[in-house]
């Protein structure tokens, strides 16, 4: 199978900094004319959740509460200090002209980056299709992610 002019990003992380890296690389790849896909799995799903509370059973609701989604709610992987770090990094980034995660995600959407969500992680964490932003194209499994990655000339795992 020949590699196409395509980039695939597997986003496992739900940390602000790592999601920044994913959306920055995705928008840059798409801007360079590469067919770009992000496969959001496990913690990475937070970046495409619309931010409402999720879960049905007791444990699912606990996960929804402790791990609430929404792209502006993400904290950095280091120095979060219960939200202080997030506030600080957002201020520092804005001062340096760095765009917000919401705007960066929108840039990806505008450039045609494909958003795919991992079915198995959604089942485990009790996240429904309606809990995700409407721009998510499909809910798929690892075999689909593997196929798309195999056909890409770049694969990132974040």
């Amino acid at each position, binding site marked *: 199978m020949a590699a196409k002019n395509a980039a695939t990003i597997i986003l496992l992380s739900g940390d602000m900094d790592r999601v920044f890296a994913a959306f*920055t690389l995705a*928008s*840059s790849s*798409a*801007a*360079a*004319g590469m067919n770009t896909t992000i496969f959001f799995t496990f913690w990475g799903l937070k970046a495409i959740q619309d931010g409402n509370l999720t879960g049905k059973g007791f444990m699912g609701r606990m996960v929804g509460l402790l791990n609430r989604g929404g792209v502006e709610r993400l904290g950095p992987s280091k120095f979060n200090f219960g939200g202080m770090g997030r506030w600080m990094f957002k201020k520092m980034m804005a001062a*340096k*002209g*760095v*765009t917000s995660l919401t705007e*960066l995600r929108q*840039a990806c959407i*505008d*450039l045609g980056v494909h958003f795919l969500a991992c079915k198995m992680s959604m089942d485990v964490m009790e996240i429904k299709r309606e809990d995700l932003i409407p721009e998510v194209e499909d809910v798929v499994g690892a075999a689909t992610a593997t196929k798309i990655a195999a056909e890409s000339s770049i694969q990132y795992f974040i």
Partner: protein
Amino acid sequence: MEAIKADQVQDSLGQACPMPIVHMAKNMRGMAAGQVLELRADDEGAHADIPAWCEQTGNEFLGKEQADGYFKYYVRKKA
């Protein structure tokens, strides 16, 4: 460098990576082959990123020109 006549100007002053490139890609989509985009940016990353983007996409990097506190980068859309 000889003065280059631009068909479209993009103001990316104050923007950080990757937004100048993102906006350039969007602007270039709406331009005709052979037209020139003048991109104004003050992010130092643009020095390397704009020629790199041109090399990857096949568009022509015509050069850059220093202005007051920023650079003007000229890119010609490929045929």
